[in-house]
């Protein structure tokens, strides 16, 4: 009997290479087409302000430099299309390189092209940006930007990039006293600060032209999306624009979209008649592109004195950075998930995004949903405290009941399936919640300087969203030897699709996993695709693999029927034997037999569409706070994350581990900071607090599997859950540790000094 490998801890097929010889990242590529490539280093603005000129003479005189391109050299080159067109015209017209003003420190000013990386770096250092023409508008703080203290785009007359109400992405606030019928109303300003995505591999691109055809190797999460942008900029047909993504060392949202530095590379290659390469440094990655979160929220929650929540108002101001793009749109997700896991009768949201003198913001793991969870969880905690109730009891009292699904929340979001109370119970049980509370009481009574805090968060999030849902492509082919080849439009950059997608094909087709090869990341081999982000890949890309595999079985049935000399309706397929006449398994046709017989290779594809799914769970964080120094130690992290049936529990655990770590890091350490003049000051790993295993406990993971009705196998996304649940749980634990001293709120990151100040 064949035992299904579904739901088992199949070891990752990609790991032997990664753990021995290592991956081949874009910067490592050796390819004949890149022979003789020149290297680019971008000279960057070291200050904000009007720019009257760029002196490139020093760069041109640098040995090894082939040339320097500034924005004035690009007058004839069409502007790149904006990421989204929701914003005022003037904010969308971003030049390729700094034109007459540097709007954020780190903005690229000139492309220095040289024989070697070293020469390019030397040349870039010699580029002189000539500032002049008045004081720059310098607006670092997003609330200052919101108040139009100074206006960055004078022609627009305001820093407001997008009021989401005007595009129906938030409800707006009604007149009158929204909370009139509430006995208890709490209000809190909540910061959800800016963080950097920090993929271990930064941005990297190589490209070449051959007879008008472009090949781009790029560290991206979404080769096909990026192909669309390159085709648009360079006016190329699909066949003349090939995007290859080699191994990619993480993205976390930063590599879904494209940047100036990447998109300009083929133009440089064309001008210099050479293949071209560009790989950024860690500092460029930290300051140049793609910060996430960056919201200030005002939450107001009202309800009955016994803890029943009735009404909620959420105001969001989001920092879009100097040029609005995806980041400015993400408050939409915050709006969609405003209700969290709770049954709240009335909700109003007011969301807007403003430009600031900082690097543009992008999607970062969770992208708008962590902010929603953080807001509602903080509000519920404070509401519970005001009602004099345990925060867990108030949560349990207000959670959406399982029998209500599918359920539409007050903001109109339709959740597919969920058992929120059970997730909370399971996490609490695993944490020994009652014992923890007893230990906390003991320490408080004894005046122990090691304060104990217990934080709980309940979350629900949206994956493969927003409505109406998403698509992903896969093609499945039977090889002449009877193995299978899966061509996937999703793109694993650490998520393990080479293993998990092979498991799906193997299970459907009855072909051993060793004989299933998954191919991804090459637009020449894979006709269509979207990419991997928003925790979409298994539910869409994985479902596409199953769908295509089932189609292949149906196609093969005809040929099998011919071989068996039977009517195709009488031929059945089972994963163990292959095709045989129903009730006569002794004579069976294998995939190898079929491959031999078939005139054309047996193959089928699927562009699988499904509505968004809603993973959920509950996190419990236990912290110790040093009463004297304010230092917070995360002692335990217990999470119940339900993303539907687990295809490979080990891979899912990996996703949870990384997510929990990043979420906890935002709560405790990580923060992207700028000084008042717009200089990014957390520009290396010495200053930017990327977390390590040493600061984290071993995570205690609780399993729960509630299927989604939206795809045949019931999958939901697991990629972002950890990040979404953990930040508010850890923050809540810190506040809880101080609660008996009258503290009701501490903003994240809960740095030692911040906690110390809250204590004093």
């Amino acid at each position, binding site marked *: 009997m064949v035992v299904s490998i579904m739901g088992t801890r199949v070891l990752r097929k990609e790991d032997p290479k990664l753990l021995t010889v290592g991956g081949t990242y874009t910067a490592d590529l050796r390819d004949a087409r890149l022979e003789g490539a020149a290297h680019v280093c971008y000279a960057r603005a070291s200050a904000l302000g009007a720019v009257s000129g760029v002196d490139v003479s020093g760069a041109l005189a640098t040995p090894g430099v082939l040339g320097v391109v500034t924005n004035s050299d690009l007058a004839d080159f069409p502007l790149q299309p904006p990421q989204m067109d929701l914003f005022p015209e003037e904010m969308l017209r971003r030049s390729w390189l700094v034109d007459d003003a540097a709007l954020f420190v780190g903005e690229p000013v000139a492309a220095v092209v040289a024989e070697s990386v070293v020469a390019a770096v030397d040349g870039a250092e010699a580029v002189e940006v000539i500032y002049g023409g008045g004081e720059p508008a310098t607006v670092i703080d997003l609330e200052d930007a919101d108040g139009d203290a100074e206006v960055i785009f004078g022609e627009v007359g305001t820093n407001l990039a997008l009021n989401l109400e005007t595009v129906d992405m938030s409800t707006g606030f009604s007149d009158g006293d929204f909370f009139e019928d509430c006995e208890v109303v709490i209000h809190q300003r909540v910061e959800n600060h800016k963080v950097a995505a920090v993929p271990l591999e930064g941005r990297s691109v190589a490209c070449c032209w051959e007879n008008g055809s472009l090949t781009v190797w790029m560290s991206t999460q979404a080769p096909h999306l990026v192909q669309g942008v390159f085709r648009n900029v360079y006016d190329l047909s699909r066949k003349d624009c090939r995007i290859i993504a080699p191994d990619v060392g993480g993205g976390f949202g930063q590599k879904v979209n494209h940047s100036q530095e990447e998109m300009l590379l083929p133009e440089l290659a064309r001008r210099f008649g050479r293949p071209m390469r560009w790989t950024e440094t860690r500092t460029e990655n930290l300051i140049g592109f793609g910060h996430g979160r960056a919201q200030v929220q005002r939450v107001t929650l009202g309800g009955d004195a016994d803890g029943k929540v009735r009404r909620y108002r959420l105001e969001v101001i989001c920092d879009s950075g100097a040029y609005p793009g995806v980041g400015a749109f993400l408050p939409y997700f915050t709006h969609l998930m405003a209700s969290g896991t709770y049954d709240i009768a009335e909700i109003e949201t007011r969301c807007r995004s403003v430009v600031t003198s900082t690097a543009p913001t992008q999607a970062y793991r969770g992208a708008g949903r962590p902010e929603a969870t953080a807001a509602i969880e903080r509000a519920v905690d404070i509401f519970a405290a005001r009602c004099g109730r345990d925060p867990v009891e108030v949560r349990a009292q207000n959670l959406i009941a399982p029998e209500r699904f599918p359920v539409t929340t007050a903001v109109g979001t339709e959740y597919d399936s969920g058992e929120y109370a059970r997730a909370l119970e399971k996490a609490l049980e695993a944490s020994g919640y009652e014992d923890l509370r007893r230990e906390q009481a003991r320490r408080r009574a004894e005046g122990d300087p090691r304060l104990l805090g217990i934080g709980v968060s309940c979350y629900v999030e949206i994956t493969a969203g927003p409505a109406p849902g998403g698509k992903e492509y896969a093609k499945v082919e039977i090889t002449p030897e009877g193995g299978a080849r899966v061509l996937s439009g999703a793109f694993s950059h650490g998520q393990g699709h080479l293993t998990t997608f092979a498991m799906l094909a193997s299970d459907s087709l009855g072909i051993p996993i060793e004989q299933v090869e998954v191919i991804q990341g090459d637009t020449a081999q894979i006709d269509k695709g979207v990419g991997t982000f928003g925790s979409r890949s298994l539910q869409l890309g994985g479902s596409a693999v199953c769908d295509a595999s089932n189609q292949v079985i149906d196609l093969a049935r005809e040929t099998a029927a011919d071989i068996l000399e039977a009517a195709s309706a009488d031929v059945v397929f089972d994963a163990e034997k292959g095709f045989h006449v129903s009730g006569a398994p002794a004579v069976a046709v294998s995939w190898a037999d079929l491959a031999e017989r078939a005139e054309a290779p047996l193959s089928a594809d699927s562009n699988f569409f499904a509505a968004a799914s809603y993973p959920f769970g509950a996190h419990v964080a236990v912290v110790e706070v040093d009463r004297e120094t304010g*230092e917070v130690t995360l002692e335990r992290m217990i999470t119940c994350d339900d993303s539907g049936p687990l295809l490979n529990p080990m891979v899912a655990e990996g996703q949870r581990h990384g997510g929990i770590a990043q979420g906890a890091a935002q709560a405790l350490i990580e923060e992207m900071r700028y000084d008042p003049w717009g200089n990014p000051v957390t520009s290396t790993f010495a200053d930017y607090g990327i977390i390590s295993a040493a600061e984290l406990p071993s995570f205690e993971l609780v399993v729960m599997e509630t299927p989604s009705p939206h795809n045949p196998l019931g999958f939901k996304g697991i990629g972002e859950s950890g990040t979404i649940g953990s930040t508010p749980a850890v923050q809540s634990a810190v506040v809880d540790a101080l609660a008996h001293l009258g503290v009701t709120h501490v903003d994240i990151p809960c740095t030692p*000094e911040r906690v110390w100040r809250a204590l004093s």
Partner: protein
Amino acid sequence: MIPAAFDYIRATSADEAIAALAEHGDDAKLLAGGHSLLPLMRFRLARPAVVVDIGRLNDLKYIRDEGDHVAIGALTRHRDVETSEVVAAKVGLLGEVTSHVGDPQVRHRGTIGGAVAHGDPASDIPSALIALGAVLVAAGPSGSREISVDDFFAGFLETALSPEEVLTEVRIPATDGAWGFEKFNRRAQDWAIVGCSAAVRADAGVGVALVNMHPTPIRAGATEAALAGGAGAAQAAEVAAEGCDPTEDLNASVEYRQHLARVLTRRALEAAGL
């Protein structure tokens, strides 16, 4: 992340290094473990025209028990100090402090001489040397001289070494007294936000020094005086920040640093049995 171009000389003896320094003056920099110098060069914050590599001067890699003191060659790696039995037995504080430097990779490269010669107020090692009352030995064109650790740190990243001198040895008075070390940081491998070394010396005096509380590594003079005057740990720690001129940075305001100095000093003193 690529240093500006430089010439490279590999010294095969201390004399050769001194000669190279004498020839190139201010344009030259010694390279020991490289873990302070190379980061500066990679950000182009330091751009020496000549780098004189002393990393292979094996005759300056030693830890010797000299009875009343321990002599450590300037090129001795942190890892060797951390694991040395002589250090553990006679200048235990130094071994403990060294084990908190960076991570194992850093400790396998960085040298005690480099940690001292760099004159970094955030470095942990000088605090141990101040608390223990070390003497530093420098060799130059006109021979060798001894410098008390109290006269060594001249300003931010500045020391009493002249541009032609090579630090050759660190001498630390032996003690079997108790000691304590406190390092406060955000992440395991981070530099100290504030740190404190305290040691009971052979003469029964107590040495106390602070990390990252001043433009230079600094002795907590007021605390030492209070202890000498009979104050207990808690009372003596109250004056730990006196005479210090700390700066504000991403991790801490001046006020918080001063607070940390007091708390950490008390804890270090308590750990030293005071």
